[in-house]
């Protein structure tokens, strides 16, 4: 461990960090892919496919690997099983942190990792590089999603981009008026919705506060909500501490939030599109918006476990999940933008890709994708140290009090 830390520091000195422009919109076009200032363990990608192993253990966000057991109409797993003979065992996780813990057990072959998990998985050697030549559908994937700082290191791809979306501002249209367009309704000390606010329960939520401060307190100089020095971090933590008494409850289970929105215990909150769709389908009047400050969000990557004994089935799964048909089904069911442009022709709702701005790189750039905060500032600053995820976690316990 010590050696790795030394290596980290050494690389930092070598100025590799200039490349690490992270995910903030304005910088992302200039960002050289990968360079996060650390050297992942040396692992080789699979050279060629072998015999199908008969099964694959999938670790996925809820709604990413549906086999018809939740809703008979929603199934893109059974067809894959019949076609390849790879039985798919799905385990759903609730948060990125849970995913990282589960992945360490070595029991899973593939994972749909968000950006706040992927770097941790890469650094610890839990996932290995992916030979994209063995994934034929990879060629179709939008170029602006490939080799980004959260799915590659030093131009080596660690997975297949799956889809992306934003953590939206959601509200009950009958209880909240006028319709909010800013996160102020959740962060302003005088918000009229005190006690009825629902916020995301994860250390990564600190980035939402930082993003708010980026617009509302420009003097702090926050450029990337995942790269916070002492002062910026403290400001975000203070903002969240001020918000806490106004929060009705924190959610990590999207079903719990949906229920709170339905019963009116929460009238405004941060939510995923899938939560909004679900709550709407059950009759509650809710709407959502990408607020003026922008939003945090996710850009997910399917990755392969370094310890997987089912590599061929894993690659087949990677190829299947970004195939036009399956990619369209996931994107529509979960409520996100697909990663494969050909998926847009396969969606049931033909407006889906327009609604979710698929392929709209400019819109995608407004979303600040979850990225693991590390000591090396992801916005390229080398004169200060940034707070790492361990400190984010400790602060989160303190915020909740």
């Amino acid at each position: 461990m010590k050696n790795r830390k030394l290596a980290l520091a050494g690389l930092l000195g070598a100025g590799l960090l200039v490349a690490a422009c992270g995910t903030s919109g304005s910088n992302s076009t200039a960002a050289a892919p990968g360079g996060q200032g650390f050297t992942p363990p040396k692992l080789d990608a699979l050279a060629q496919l072998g015999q199908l192993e008969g099964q694959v253990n999938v670790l996925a966000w809820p709604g990413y690997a549906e086999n018809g057991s939740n809703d008979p109409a929603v199934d893109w797993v059974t067809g894959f099983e019949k076609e390849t003979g790879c039985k798919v065992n799905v385990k759903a996780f609730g948060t990125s942190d849970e995913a990282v813990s589960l992945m360490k057990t070595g029991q899973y072959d593939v994972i749909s990792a968000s950006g706040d998990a992927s770097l941790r998985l890469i650094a610890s050697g839990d996932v290995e590089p992916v030979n994209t030549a063995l994934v034929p559908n990879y060629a179709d994937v939008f170029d602006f999603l490939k080799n980004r700082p959260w799915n590659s290191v030093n131009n080596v791809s660690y997975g297949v981009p799956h889809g992306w979306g934003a953590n939206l501002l959601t509200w009950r249209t009958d209880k909240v008026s006028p319709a909010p367009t800013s996160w102020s309704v959740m962060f302003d000390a005088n918000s009229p919705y005190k006690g009825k606010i629902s916020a995301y329960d994860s250390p990564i939520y600190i980035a939402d506060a930082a993003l708010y401060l980026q617009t509302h307190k420009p003097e702090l100089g926050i450029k990337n909500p995942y790269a916070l020095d002492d002062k910026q971090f403290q400001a975000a933590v203070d903002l969240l501490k001020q918000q806490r008494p106004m929060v009705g409850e924190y959610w990590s289970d999207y079903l719990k939030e949906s229920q709170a929105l339905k019963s009116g215990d929460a009238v405004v909150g941060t939510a995923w599109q899938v939560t909004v769709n679900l709550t709407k389908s059950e009759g509650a009047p809710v709407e959502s918006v990408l607020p003026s400050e922008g939003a945090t969000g996710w850009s997910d990557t399917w990755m392969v476990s370094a310890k997987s004994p089912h590599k061929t089935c894993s690659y087949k799964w990677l190829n299947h999940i970004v195939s036009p048909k399956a990619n369209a089904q996931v994107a529509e069911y979960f409520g996100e933008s697909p990663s494969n442009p050909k998926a847009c022709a396969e969606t049931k709702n033909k407006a889906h890709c327009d609604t979710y701005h698929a392929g709209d790189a400019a819109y995608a750039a407004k979303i600040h994708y979850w990225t693991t905060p590390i000591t090396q500032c992801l916005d390229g600053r080398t004169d200060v140290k940034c707070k790492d995820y361990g400190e984010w976690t400790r602060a989160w316990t303190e915020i909740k009090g």
Partner: protein
Amino acid sequence: MTTTLDSPRRKASAFLYRKPRLRLAMLLSAPALWLGLAYLGALAALFVTAFWHTDVFTGQVVTEWSLDNFVTLFSDAVYRTITLRTVGIAALVTVITAVIAFPMAFYMAKFASPRARRLLVIAVMTPLWASYLVKAYAWRSMLSGNGVLHWLLNPFGLDTPGYGVLATVITLSYLWLPYMILPIYAGLERLPNSLVDASGDLGARPFRTLRSVVLPVTFPAVVAGSIFTFSLSLGDYIAVKIVGGTSQMLGNVVYDNIGAANNLPFAATVATVPVVIMLAYLAAVRRTGALDNL
């Protein structure tokens, strides 16, 4: 007949008869292994882990000894707050369940007919057969802003407490009530009726009998019940996640440190807090004789 005397079975039993220590060792080896390895071993492993730490980036456990975790635990005010809140909730739950359970157990043990008594015992046990989660979520919808409690209390100018510490206390009291009723019921059943009669014959009014005869005799049973309700509340993290609003208990810190931060060592450090509290509590109640009653 001689064949049976020389049979291997017979020989073995004769051998064991001559070696009482071996007999004892064989009888106790399975429970001793269980207690020693699975139970105390796990506790020891927990305690050892508490002195390690994790690499924050990769999340791997680093097996270097340090007291850093304990320093954090004692220096950060937030953990003190959470510990106090948890102990407060556990104490309140214990008092509430004791107050509700005592009359119930008293009626069951002393007044109910044998048939009614059987039905009541079954009624008390029934909730134990249902899933914890279902019961906790049922309280979530009851305590909701437009739930049953709101509907019931609104005509009287009151309202549901909403989600928070109070909701947690209510839910936990409901969940652990049977664990309090049953020990008190068992204790009261052992109280001879003649003692109560004698107290009355000597001129004591009912209240005096209750205070001077019934309560002292059943106090150890109440303490026995409190060990259950107190320790179960101390370790709970699910109910507070479901109805606790924004508040957290020690269990949540443990859970978050494993589930979110993947920091097993610090979770182990926090987990020693309820163990220490429970040991202190047990040491305190040992004097009451409650432990003989378990």
